[in-house]
């Protein structure tokens, strides 16, 4: 594999650093986006601890825990895939990224089933056969839950599309560059980091 140098960069190292810097700045803006939601949830927990805990207890802890493990495992596979691409083992990289994308789909299926369960239990604000929050604070918790996990699920969906695209292109004669695969991997790891914070706040605030 040769990384192609292109204008305006004079050497490969600087080009690589610029690529990486751009990606990290974008990820920092994503961290701001999710950070605001996390802070909103923490403020709600400070002011309404009892309803917050009551609503948190009604979430499906098993599904949330399994989903955390699924995302952590997919992150491992993406890291291995990026390593394999750097060593020109594109076949291995294809498999790793492909399985990671499948794990992302598994995450979305589990999340969807949870949403459906909450829909049936009256926990989905403004939808479902009936509404059963118990208190205004719990209703606010569920609002925050659906906004935060919904936005996160959208990011998972985008990540799955990018991982699958990379896996597909790795099989062809013009595979994505090492830096390109690594940047997609960075995005996926950030999605993982966001979930690592959402999980305890939403599911473990009992």
């Amino acid at each position, binding site marked *: 594999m040769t990384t192609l140098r292109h204008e305006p960069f004079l050497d490969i190292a600087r080009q690589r650093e610029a690529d990486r810097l751009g990606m990290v700045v974008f990820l920092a803006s994503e961290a701001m986006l999710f950070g605001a939601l996390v802070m909103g949830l923490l403020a709600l927990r400070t002011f309404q601890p009892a309803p917050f805990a009551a609503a948190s207890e009604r979430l499906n802890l098993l599904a949330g825990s399994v989903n955390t493990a699924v995302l952590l495992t997919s992150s491992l596979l993406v890291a291995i895939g990026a390593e394999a691409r750097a060593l020109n083992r594109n076949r291995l990289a294809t498999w790793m990224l492909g399985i990671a994308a499948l794990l992302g789909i598994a995450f979305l299926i589990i999340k969807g089933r949870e949403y459906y369960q909450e829909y049936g239990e009256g926990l989905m604000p403004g939808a479902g056969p009936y509404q059963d929050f118990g208190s205004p604070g719990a209703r606010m918790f569920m609002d925050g839950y659906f906004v935060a996990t919904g936005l996160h699920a959208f990011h998972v969906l985008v990540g799955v599309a990018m991982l699958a695209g990379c896996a597909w292109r790795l099989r062809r004669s013009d595979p994505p560059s090492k830096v390109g695969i690594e940047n997609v991997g960075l995005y996926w790891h950030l999605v993982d980091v966001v979930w690592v914070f959402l999980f*305890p706040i939403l599911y473990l605030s009992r």
Partner: protein
Amino acid sequence: MGLRRLLLTWVALLVLLSMTIAASFLPIGNWRQLANMAIAAAKAGLIVWIFMKMRQETALVRLAGVIAAVLLLVLGSLLASDYLFRIDSPLIRIDGSNARGPLTPDAASSGERSP
């Protein structure tokens, strides 16, 4: 190849996940939430440092990542300095009444308040 390092990181992440779930069942009151946030920070640190390969990045790229964390801390502190000192904050409430005097029944029913 750093395969061994990646696998060990993954094992550590899963151990931390089981720890945070176990900690949430301990009868230690609000310390649970502190423990859970500390474990989340440790997990995020492992992912950022090993999986995202920040340990191999240049100072410039690391700085961009650190600024994100610093900005979140600044914004969080500003938010806390507002919310934590509002009139119905748990920090400044004194024995069930607030600075405006005891809650009227009307105000009490509009939003539940924790003891």
